[in-house]
């Protein structure tokens, strides 16, 4: 078991954002995490990566209790993530930014540069390497942050809506990149995604979150036909249809 | 004896604090509405002080009659500053905002130096000047300080009621809480920002007009009050108007710490306490207080935003 979330509770003031969430991710798996807006998906990621403290519960990573660790130490253990809302402002270019990720595993600039170039090549982003991140449109920036996360050489990668705002053709491209990261680079991946065409296609297993609880877990086909899931999505059922 | 010294220090601190809270009022409103720190705040105060001084000198009227003039000049200055300058700064990063207002501070300070010279100047005659009042039996207070404090409380109360009770004051608050939402409600952010600068400018120049009754003015007077105002705003909670009042009183008492120290040394009779040159550290405590407040309770005592 690579990642185990056990009875996780997160309160924001009086609001319970996560209510006893438990799930597991096995090594080399690709898990999709879906649920209607406000279900608590991003909060769950924030708790796992350590960006928000948990109220109650445990997070085990690679057999170690990481519940109390600060984010940067979790990253050192091999936990990487991207952010749903992110807009670069600085003057780093894509290569330099990817090097920041690579510096987690080395202190040498030449070595970091080699790792970064290698990562960009693997992810098909090499043509962008001289561009400033802040000058790339936001959907593209998310792909860059994915490359930076991969450059940290993680054991697990948490992707938060990397395909939002892309057209179908670009989604196909991202799908290819994610499978490449998962299959060829062998990185366990958890994916938050609203684009069903993407998540249902490549996930091996899907976890459905609604109102802070896990309501269903299973293979993609099982999940979409589950009455509870359909009910949770009822208000947004059009979205299921539309984006498929 | 010790208790009299202590009472004297606390009363002086409270009265000064009442004036200080008006000094900080504009800063907290401006910060609350648009998250910008105005380094030239103390220079606005200095302008208010010179206004009071010059009006009473040239017209022969009592310096207190200069207050409306100071308010008009301050409001106008705030308005111009916003439209000609601060509006442009808002587009830039924080560094540009800080240094931009610092440039404004240098500009105003040295303009005063060029116009009025560097020497200390103070008010010589007026209704309150040179008289004193005895309160609480044994506590001697100069009438200038008492009068300034009373007027300061009135000015503060007026501004507070304006913000709390009028429609336009509420619009100002809405902009402070969430500019985007306020814009959707049809409130123009630009106009609210300008209003904040008008109130801020008028408030602090009035404070200057009050202060000049008992405090000599020179072109360099601003920085101290800028730092005092920053501390008050931090203590009261950035953006909180009632917070600024109570924090002003507290900071006023902190500035009288040497007097309190004297009272304690009288009371204990410890010799070493007399030897500490506490008067030289009059304002050091204020800076230390800022540092500690920010570490212990970053939201201040009456945190309103964030």
């Amino acid at each position: 078991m690579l990642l185990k979330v056990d009875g996780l509770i997160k309160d924001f003031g009086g609001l319970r954002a996560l209510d006893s969430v438990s799930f597991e991710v096995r090594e080399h798996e690709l898990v999709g995490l879906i649920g209607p807006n406000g279900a608590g998906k991003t909060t769950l990621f924030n708790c796992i990566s350590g960006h928000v403290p948990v109220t109650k519960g445990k997070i085990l990573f690679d057999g170690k209790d990481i519940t109390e660790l600060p984010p940067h130490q979790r990253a050192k253990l091999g936990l990487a993530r991207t952010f749903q809302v992110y807009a670069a402002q600085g003057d780093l270019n894509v290569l330099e930014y990817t090097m920041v990720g690579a510096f987690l595993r080395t202190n040498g600039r030449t070595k970091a540069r080699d790792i970064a170039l290698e990562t960009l090549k693997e992810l098909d982003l090499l043509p962008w390497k001289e561009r400033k991140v802040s000058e790339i449109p936001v959907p593209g920036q998310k792909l860059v942050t994915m490359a930076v996360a991969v450059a940290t050489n993680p054991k697990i990668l948490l992707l938060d809506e990397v395909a939002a705002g892309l057209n179908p053709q670009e989604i196909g491209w991202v799908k290819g990149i994610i499978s490449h990261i998962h299959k060829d680079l062998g990185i366990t991946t958890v994916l938050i995604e609203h684009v069903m065409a993407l998540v249902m296609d490549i996930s091996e297993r899907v976890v459905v979150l609604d109102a802070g609880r896990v309501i269903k877990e299973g293979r993609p086909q099982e999940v979409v036909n589950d009455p509870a899931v359909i009910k949770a999505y009822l208000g947004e059922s059009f979205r299921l249809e539309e984006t498929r | 004896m010790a208790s009299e010294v202590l009472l004297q220090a606390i009363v002086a601190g409270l009265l000064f604090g009442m004036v200080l809270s008006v000094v900080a009022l504009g800063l907290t409103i401006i910060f609350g509405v648009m998250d910008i720190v105005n380094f030239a705040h103390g220079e606005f105060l200095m302008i208010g002080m010179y206004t009071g001084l010059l009006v009473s000198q040239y017209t022969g009227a009592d310096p207190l009659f200069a207050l409306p003039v100071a308010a008009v000049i301050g409001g106008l200055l705030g308005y111009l500053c916003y439209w000609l300058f601060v509006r442009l700064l808002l587009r830039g990063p924080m560094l540009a905002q800080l240094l931009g207002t610092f440039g404004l501070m240098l500009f105003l300070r040295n303009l005063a130096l060029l116009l009025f010279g560097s020497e200390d100047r103070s008010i010589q005659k007026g209704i309150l000047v040179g008289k004193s009042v005895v309160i609480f039996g044994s506590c001697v207070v100069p009438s200038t300080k008492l009068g300034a404090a009373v007027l300061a409380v009135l000015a503060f109360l007026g501004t507070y009621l304006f913000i709390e009770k009028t429609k336009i004051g509420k619009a100002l608050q809405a902009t402070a809480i969430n500019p985007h939402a306020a814009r959707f409600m049809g409130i123009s952010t630009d106009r609210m920002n300008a209003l904040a600068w008008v109130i801020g400018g008028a408030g602090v120049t009035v404070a200057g007009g009050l202060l000049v009754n008992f405090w000599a003015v020179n072109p360099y007077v601003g920085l101290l009050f800028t730092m005092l105002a920053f501390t008050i705003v931090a203590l009261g909670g950035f953006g909180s108007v009632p917070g600024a009042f109570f924090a002003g009183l507290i900071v006023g008492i902190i500035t009288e710490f040497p007097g309190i120290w004297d009272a304690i040394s009288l009371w204990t009779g410890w010799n070493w306490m007399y030897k500490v040159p506490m008067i030289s550290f009059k304002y050091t405590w204020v800076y230390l207080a800022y540092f500690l407040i920010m570490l212990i309770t970053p939201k201040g005592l009456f945190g309103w935003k964030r």
Partner: protein
Amino acid sequence: MEAIRNALDFKDLPRSEVYLSWAVALFLIIFPLLPFSSFAMATMIQFLIFAVYGMGWNTIGGYGGQVDLGKAQYVGIGAYTTTVALIRWDIPFWVSMPLGMAISVLWSFMIGYPLFKLKGHYFAIATIATSLVLKDLFEVWGFVGAARGLHISPVKYPPPDFLRLIFKEDVYYYYLLLGFFFLAVFVMNWFRHSALGYRLRCIKDNEEVAKALGINVHWAKIKTYALATAYVSAMGSVHAMYIKNIEPEDTMSLDISVLIALMAMLGGAGSLWGPIIGAAVLVPMKSYLKEWMGAKMGLIGIDLIIYGFIIMVIAAVEPKGLWGLYERWKGKRSAP
């Protein structure tokens, strides 16, 4: 050694910039041989001092985006350490300067730890507060001369004294400072290429992302702050030996702190050449304005009025500074 290789590696800069910087370096080396006035010489010395101050500030303020307005306290610690060491115990400069740097760095760790829990404006004002507290302390501390300050008598130490850094002619100071200046550029170039430099730029961009990439944000800021402090303190030591007269009001005032930040900002915060360009523009402008308009025309303060106005215009029009202006111009030119 990769660190030295990084310090000497300018290959990532456009070739035109490298050539231009060679030309500037050459000019700086032969400057004293050219027939310039002693006033120009004094101005050049100020330029070198403030360029190094600005480079130090640029690490934490420019690359890291942490607006530090308290650098004057480290000018003060550096200046006072060497001066006190010389006057009280006759300790030579080359010992007391590293000592001053050590004290400064120690102090920077002590206040940096709490300071960097704050962000944005709160941080900026807190740096001012710490600097003013230290200044108040120095103003009453008799051992370091209190408000009167300290004075190094050139009679007691006959110049030229290379050990104590007491010279009569400015040219000695000039070449010494030029050495420090070049060293500072190389250290800066190393920093830019180091893991810490990259991490700091990421922190400036987004702290949450930086944390997710395994960066200990708080510690990275403290380390960089210490580096900035070492720069400023070393230069403060030289500065004190040069002016030979230090008092809290001059060396530790807020104006010095802001001037240091301004150098970097005017030139372009977060770029290698920014602080140097900033100092090259601001220092001569300030001293010539003062000389011509202040002293000759008798208009006291007019230099600072103009100076303040220029700062306002730059902050309002091009917050990225002159370097930003140049890059914008270059971008327009290379665009199809």
